[in-house]
């Protein structure tokens, strides 16, 4: 295996991914979600101070984020989005799904999620933001409830 192929092999088995989740409940309205615990981040690109992932190389990433509300439901609509910068370094959003929080009133914790392919430029950040029009409400915490996963799928 020559050096060029070795480099390609290394890219295919790259460390550009992270898995983070929320351990401490957060009172949210329209705000950045505080994923405060790192499960995986082999290249050290996630910041626990800004709760964002700094894109290490320009490429196509797959991202998936979700949060759940634990407070008493109110009759409003809530959702989630991912903020990132595209190949032209312009700010973009990946809009996610949300549901009426009133679902909570019948005992089901409402959940919002977002997933998809995002073209990101190196140096920009990816973070998750809530869109919630009701009174401040707590998130439900846990590795399986409120989390974000990011993975480089291909170089540009």
């Amino acid at each position, binding site marked *: 295996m020559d050096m060029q192929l070795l480099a390609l092999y290394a890219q*295919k088995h790259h460390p550009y991914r992270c898995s983070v989740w929320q351990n401490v409940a957060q009172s949210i309205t329209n705000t950045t979600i505080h994923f405060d615990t790192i499960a995986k981040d082999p290249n050290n690109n996630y910041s626990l101070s800004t709760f964002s992932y700094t894109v290490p190389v320009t490429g196509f990433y797959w991202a998936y984020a979700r949060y759940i509300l634990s407070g008493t439901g109110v009759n409003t609509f809530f959702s989630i989005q991912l903020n990132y910068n595209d190949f032209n370094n312009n700010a973009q959003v990946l809009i996610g799904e949300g549901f009426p929080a009133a679902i909570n009133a019948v005992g089901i914790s409402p959940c919002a999620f977002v997933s998809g392919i995002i073209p990101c430029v190196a140096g920009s950040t990816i973070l998750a933001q809530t869109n919630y029009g009701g009174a401040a409400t707590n998130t439900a915490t846990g590795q399986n409830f409120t989390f974000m996963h990011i993975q480089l799928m291909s170089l540009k």
Partner: protein
Amino acid sequence: MDALELKLFSEIYTPIRASIYRVSNQTGVVAATVTQIQFDTIEYDYANIVVSLGTVNAGFKIPTSGWYLISGCVGFSMTAAANGQSFFTFNKNAVNTFNNVVIGSQMPTTNAGGTLNHMVGGGIVQLNVGDLVGAAGSCSGTGGSFIGGAAETYMRIMLLQEGLS
């Protein structure tokens, strides 16, 4: 570079990646009627696989059989308040039917028409060379519009691995 190296190289640097979106609202979505989404703008298209922009057959023409990653979002606005649901699917070939669904999502419309619905879908699918991948949606209640905008109604695709085995 031997055959194995060439295969690895081609898998990493495949140019088969594309993204299209609807730039303006697409009105006239009639309740209980499948409406094809007329994507009309390219965000990026490295392998020239985008076809029929601005028409009911707008989508991706698959150049190589393989495993593909598809994701997207459809923004939907109800004409008036109604309890019901809206949904969309990414389909292949006969885009205006739902017998070839590959990915889809649905949303309740209990938001009484005042807030946009965003239906998000994504997943890995097998596609054959020549397949056409497009999108369609529908709703119950009063009908409405697909919302225009690069972040509102779009579809993205990328080849993960060649071959169907």
